[in-house]
């Protein structure tokens, strides 16, 4: 069960590197967050720790519904059919993603991170999600996709906290969710302004500030 959920998370992150249109990223992200909520729900079922239930519910509402809705709204306002642009080709990025995944699993096995009974299977995937999120930010040239990479990194962080100690204290968790929500709103506002000023979301157009 845990292995399957972990694999689904990994696939969703690699998938984000293979999309053709920016708008494709939203359902994948929603799927990734949904799996994350499922994972927290499964942990709650096993351990009966009430704050895991809250975390699962919040992940579902904030990350799997509200955040994708905001992103969807932004993309619709800009242009639905915009193609993504990558630094590397589709196949090179797949290769790099696989290498990063292997590296993530290897690093975790060497770190001797302590983990909880039901969280242990997720630990390698959580580190790999952070690696892949960073790579999404580097590889994609569209401003909005950097935001998607950032959310993937945050999802990875959430998973690290869950698998090491069943999450951070509730209060902190709530704060992080709130920050995440505000971040996505601001990413939306700025992408919209960038698009209306530069007539493009390509960050290579934004290179006037130097030195």
């Amino acid at each position, binding site marked *: 069960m845990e292995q399957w959920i972990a694999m689904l998370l990994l696939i969703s992150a690699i998938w984000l590197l293979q999309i053709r249109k920016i708008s494709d990223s939203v359902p994948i992200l929603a799927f990734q967050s949904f799996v994350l909520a499922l994972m927290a729900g499964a942990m709650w079922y096993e351990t009966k720790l009430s704050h895991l239930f809250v975390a699962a519910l919040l992940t579902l509402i904030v990350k799997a519904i509200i955040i994708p809705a905001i992103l969807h709204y932004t993309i619709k306002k800009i242009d639905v059919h915009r193609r993504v642009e990558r630094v590397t080709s589709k196949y090179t990025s797949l290769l790099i993603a696989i290498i990063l995944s292997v590296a993530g699993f290897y690093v975790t096995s060497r770190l001797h991170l302590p983990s909880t009974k039901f969280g242990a299977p997720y630990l390698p995937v959580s580190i790999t999600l952070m690696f892949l999120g*960073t790579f999404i930010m580097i590889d994609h040239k569209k401003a909005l996709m*950097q935001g998607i990479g950032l959310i993937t990194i945050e999802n990875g962080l959430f998973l690290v906290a869950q698998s090491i*100690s069943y999450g*951070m*204290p509730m209060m902190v968790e709530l*704060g992080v969710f709130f920050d995440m929500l505000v971040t996505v709103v601001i990413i939306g506002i700025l992408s919209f302004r*960038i698009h209306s000023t530069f007539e493009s979301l390509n960050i290579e157009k*934004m290179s006037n500030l130097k030195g």
Partner: protein
Amino acid sequence: MGEVSLLLIIPVMTAVLCWQIKNHPIGEKLQVAGALLNVFIGLSIARNAFFVAPVTGWHHLIYIDALSAFNVMLIVLIGFIASLYSVGYMRHEVAERIISEEKVRHYYLWFHLFIGTMLVVSVVNNIGLLWVGIELTTLVSALLVAFYRKGTSLEAAWKYLIMGSVGIAFALLGIIFLYLSGVDLFGESAESLNWTVLHRAAGQLNPQWTLIAFIFVLVGFGTKAGLAPMHFWLPDAHSQAPSPISAVLSGVLLNTALYGIFRIYTIVNTTLDGKAASYLIFFGLLSIAITVPFMLVQHDLKRMLAYSSVEHIGIITLGVGIGGALGLYGAVLHMFHHSMAKSLLFFAAGNITQKYHSKRMERISGVLKTMPMTGSIFLIAAFAITGTPPFNIFISEFTIMRAGFQSGHLVATVLFLLFVVLIFSGMMYYVVRMAFGEAPAKVEKKEMSRWSTVALFLPLIAVIVFGLYVPPFFQEIIQQVAFVLQGGKS
């Protein structure tokens, strides 16, 4: 305790009121009044924390000791001066038809929320909430950096938002590790991220985890503080933001990020028995060194000032890294002096760029002739920031240098001196060219506005007076903060 609630509520109230009140003259005065009110509350809390006892409350969620109080003091002071300065600055922008009055209301909304988020960072006891606060400062100030909606300001804001958020994500990983290093001791409760609790148990934490935690936090919050080599967002954001915002970014936001680092440093350094200090010395020196070439080839006035901030954040970090009673005293003193001198410079630079309609230094000359008051203050502030006696920064840099030689960090201190001299010559070359000489014929010889000049005098007093004489009560305050940094008291 009611005072702390007020301290946090007033900026939010001011922000919302300024946003909602359509009458522009009332709104702009109201926001100055709100900021002034917060100065009194902030200083009253700070006085309690310095001279009576740490302020606590809300089930240990709030804890203000000398270090927090010091940061609160800087935020309310610089926040007030910047809100005063904003009045003249924004009036000019509206008169020039660069922005509309409606946009000015949005400016005041975000400005005061920005001040509020920094105050939250300084008063919370929980390291997780401190992280949440620092992330919020990034989000709010990114909108302020993007305020002019030009291509360059959007570019700067995007870079700032993305670099800031990724950096801070790493800091969160560090905090998770720190939580982990103490979770065996305290169990899984919110209390185990309270730095008062962590501090008390610092000796028993798992050293391996605290070291990894510290490195992640240093890199993460270091990105926000503008430590090299994570400083790339800083010159862009500082040069593209409206000048009063640049002053707040440089004067207090960087300090607030450093506050996050130092909070965790005091815990980790106890656990690791002083081994964490070398990381601070390394990043501090690197930040000072990296400023030198950029300072020598700069064309943009505000970018030059921004690089100078990277240098001074480096000096503060170096001072804390050198440590000892003297080094920490110098570093804390430097924090205060840098905030005052740098915000003064940004305000003066704001007047200059509005007068000359350009930030390019080759287009600016004869400032002393066009604006005698702003010009002379600009010159004084520039001498102060480069560490020339008899101004305030000379005192703190000299203290850090003495601490460096005394504690045997010979190489680091000699390098520090060398870089400071190089930066002095690079910066003064441009400043002197701007201040003296003939003004372009089309520039009118007149000060900007009374509001813009009055705001310059408050930090100017600090720059001049503290260079000549440090009052005993102020020495006492600095010693208290240095004592907290030393890990003497939590």
